[in-house]
């Protein structure tokens, strides 16, 4: 997959998951690698970039077992970014679907 394209898709997935609740890195990585075949390590560069763009914030929180975990929280800016990306994704998905299913006959 094209790396830029993949980055955008992963960003959208991460931001959408954070819309529901704050999550830590391992959790995000597990869901992503299960649902869209990417390697766990690929999530951390994305999280770091989102943080530097102030789309997410981080805080440390104790867990019931083991060491404190770094949680990621969606910011307002991040939510706007999520909406933009989701819009892009809808347009892309409809466009791709129409080509895949019906060809270009109607134009």
């Amino acid at each position, binding site marked *: 997959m094209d*790396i830029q394209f993949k980055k955008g898709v992963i960003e959208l997935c991460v931001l959408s998951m954070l819309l529901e609740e704050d999550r830590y*890195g391992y959790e995000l990585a597990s869901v992503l*690698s299960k649902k869209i075949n990417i*390697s766990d*390590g*690929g999530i*951390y560069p994305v999280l*770091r970039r989102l943080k530097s763009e102030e789309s997410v914030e981080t805080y440390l929180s104790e867990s019931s077992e083991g060491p404190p975990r770094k949680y990621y929280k969606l910011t307002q800016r991040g939510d706007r970014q999520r909406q933009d990306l989701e819009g892009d994704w809808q347009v892309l998905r409809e466009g791709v679907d129409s080509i895949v299913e019906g060809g270009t006959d109607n134009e």
Partner: protein
Amino acid sequence: MNKEQYLMKLKKMLPEYESQEIINDFEEHFKVGLEDGKTEEEIIDSLGNPIDIAKEYGYVEKDKSQLPVGNRVIALIGLIFFDLLIGIAIIGSLIAVWASLWATVVSLVVSGIAVLIGMFISPVPWYILFFGGVSILALSVVLGIGMIYVTKYAFKGLVWYGKLHGRIAAGE
């Protein structure tokens, strides 16, 4: 590869001012993964190649083993000076020694055969010439075998010395 090796490999490719924070994230990933019942091997497998991860952070692999170009040029110029001033003299005289030893082998063979031929035409008792000739030939065979080894290793050494120039130029 274990966790430490994996993290070291990743850390090596990241700039120092960022590496600690990034490594902390991966340390946490390992800890949570182990609590989740995975082994270090499984976690490493699912994390993916550290080189790819460093690339996604925007860093390409730095090869720290390479010397800077300036040092390489100086080292190569030094080596060429050595070739011209001393190397050629040393290698030249070694080649001369090598050639004369081979000449000795050839002359031993020739004289051994000559002594054996002498058995038929000389008044000296035949057994003296026979043993003399055989001894000389045996000596030439021993020296010849030794020289085959010397030639082989000398050739290898010369090739190594030649390649040294290329390796220094490449900065290894």
